[in-house]
């Protein structure tokens, strides 16, 4: 598969009263064409901020992309200005995004088809009538009953599930190369979430579009994702195919996460302590305070880079890596 996106050394900081918060800290990952990758982690680990940085949607006064490059189809997006013509062409045209809150992600004072049509008129320059036609067609594709009438409804007249379908439809309108789903189904009920995930899975495969699935739900990752990056305190601490990670987790945090999910008969083993504060973090491994495997070297040396284990499996845990070379 052809390489679509390569993010390397991405760092985004936020200035707050208590100091600068390194929300995304030297993050590197790649996405191939038509591949479904996962970004998993708890709240505050920087998974959403990293995707907003790729799209340069970081609110500028407090936040700033400090370092790193975002290679997309051969061009580094960070070279373009936040409101430059090229970046506007990418956003919604080549890469589109679906957000978490269906209730607030649509403009309450605009009809559904006008909001969808806007993407088409903006990127493909087609006139309003054809834009409406294509929007209605997309609405039926995403499973909205009676799309002709629904197109003229306002967002508050649709249920949460319906609105999220509109968002998915909107993101597919310009046939983008990649879609970023930022916790797109978190706010939905189980059966509606299942419907939406199946829909996205079908459409992504049908149009051979890459999908970046940002979520904290390990079940979704297990069912739909090929390759997954586990994030903690702004860093990617382990990445690999779903099978590799589940079979042989090479980082104590990933292990802890897997054990945190209640299974019948097994005693729950929670990860001790509290998620770290992201203000002036020491260069050592972020998971150090809560890690059971930590050794002396972990305290002194900075956190290692993502090191290859086997296949697509990479990890940043020094102890685990040394353990590998011994046995």
């Amino acid at each position, binding site marked *: 598969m052809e390489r679509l996106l390569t993010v390397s050394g991405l760092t985004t900081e936020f200035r707050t009263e208590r100091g600068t918060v390194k929300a995304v800290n030297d993050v590197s990952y790649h996405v191939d064409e038509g591949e479904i990758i996962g970004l998993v982690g708890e709240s505050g680990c920087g998974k959403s901020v990293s995707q907003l940085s790729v*799209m340069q*949607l970081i*609110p500028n*006064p407090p936040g700033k992309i400090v370092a790193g490059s975002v290679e997309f189809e051969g061009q580094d997006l960070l070279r373009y200005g936040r*409101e430059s*013509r090229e970046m*506007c*062409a*990418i*956003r*919604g*045209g080549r890469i*589109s*995004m679906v*957000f978490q*809150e269906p209730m*607030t*992600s*649509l*403009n*309450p*004072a*605009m009809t559904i088809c006008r909001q969808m049509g*806007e*993407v088409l008129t*903006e*990127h493909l320059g087609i006139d309003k009538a054809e834009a409406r036609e294509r929007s209605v067609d997309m609405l039926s594709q995403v499973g909205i009953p009676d799309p002709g009438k629904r197109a003229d409804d*306002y967002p*508050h*007249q649709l249920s949460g599930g319906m609105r999220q379908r509109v*968002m998915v439809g*909107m993101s597919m309108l310009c046939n983008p190369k990649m879609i970023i789903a930022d916790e797109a189904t978190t706010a939905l009920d189980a059966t509606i979430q299942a419907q939406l995930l199946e829909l996205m899975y079908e459409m992504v495969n049908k149009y051979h579009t890459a999908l970046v699935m940002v979520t904290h739900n390990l079940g979704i990752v297990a069912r739909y994702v090929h390759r997954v990056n586990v994030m903690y305190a702004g860093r990617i601490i382990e990445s690999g195919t779903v099978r590799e990670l589940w079979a042989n987790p090479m980082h104590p945090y990933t292990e802890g996460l897997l054990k945190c999910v209640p299974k019948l008969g097994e005693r729950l083993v929670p990860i001790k302590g509290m998620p770290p504060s992201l203000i002036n973090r020491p260069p050592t491994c972020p998971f150090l305070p809560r890690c059971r495997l930590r050794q002396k070297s972990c305290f002194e040396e900075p956190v290692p880079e993502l090191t290859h284990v086997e296949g697509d499996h990479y990890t940043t845990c020094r102890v685990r890596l040394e353990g590998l070379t011994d046995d």
Partner: protein
Amino acid sequence: MLTYIVRRLIHAFVVIVIVSIAVFILIRLLPGDPIEMLISQTQLTETTPEMIEALRHDKGLDRPLPVQYADWFVQMIRGDFGTSIMRNFDIGKEIGNRVTVTLMIGLSAFVIGLVLGPILGIVSAVRRGKFVDNLVTVIANIGITAPAFWVGILLIFFFGVRLKLLPIYGYTLPWDDFWMSFKQSLMPIFVTALGPIATTARQTRSSVLEVMSEDYIRTAWAKGLNERKVILRHIIKNSLLPVVTLQGTMLRMVVGGSVVVETVFVIPGMGKMMVDAMLSHDYPVVQAVTVIMTLVVVLSSLIVDLLYGWLDPRIQYD
């Protein structure tokens, strides 16, 4: 939508009835008995208690209050506001030609506020922290805090006395002599409009900043729109909705302000009529003017509410 309109109409009617009752009672509490006023005004030499009694009966003031109120309310609806005690003119007719003066100034000031306020608010919110934002904020604050009569005096002194550019008092209707009327109403309109412009600008600025942090604005950016399109298509309409609801209070401010502005610039409007009536204890006039002014405020806020109902889709499909 229909229920929204009907409910608003009933709401406005209830408010008018309550206000008329309140005004009716308040006037009765004012010092000085109307009959004595009448007597002193007609210079009757000897006044026997019987004559006073007959006069009271003739004026119907001996009937129970609710009956008097009902009678007055019915008369009012027919446009008959009774006659002024002091100068014996028919109040209804007098209000008729004075109301045009007050509305000329009041409405133009309101419209200026309605147009300039949002523009200043949007510009200062979009250019947050930059020079224009600070400038607009300072002007807005001055507009809210400077007493209207003082600004009036300043303008009169500067443009009238020193530069002799503008007449310092009086008012002529535009269809009589347009150029003179324009010169005469320039300053009063500016003073009346200062409050609404300032308040609307501040409210628009905070509402635009609030809308800017909404999720659907982030979606608009994510669709690839540049800043200009995001502002024009998404931010403005949503941020103007709360500003529309504010316009009801702006009208109240304009109508109330006419009292001061017309006193400073000596303009024969309803406001001046009100003050003169207060000073000379001419209570029927006070009563009529108060009710009319409140009527203007209530009706215009009703229009503002209906405009809001039409603008905000969430209400259309209530």
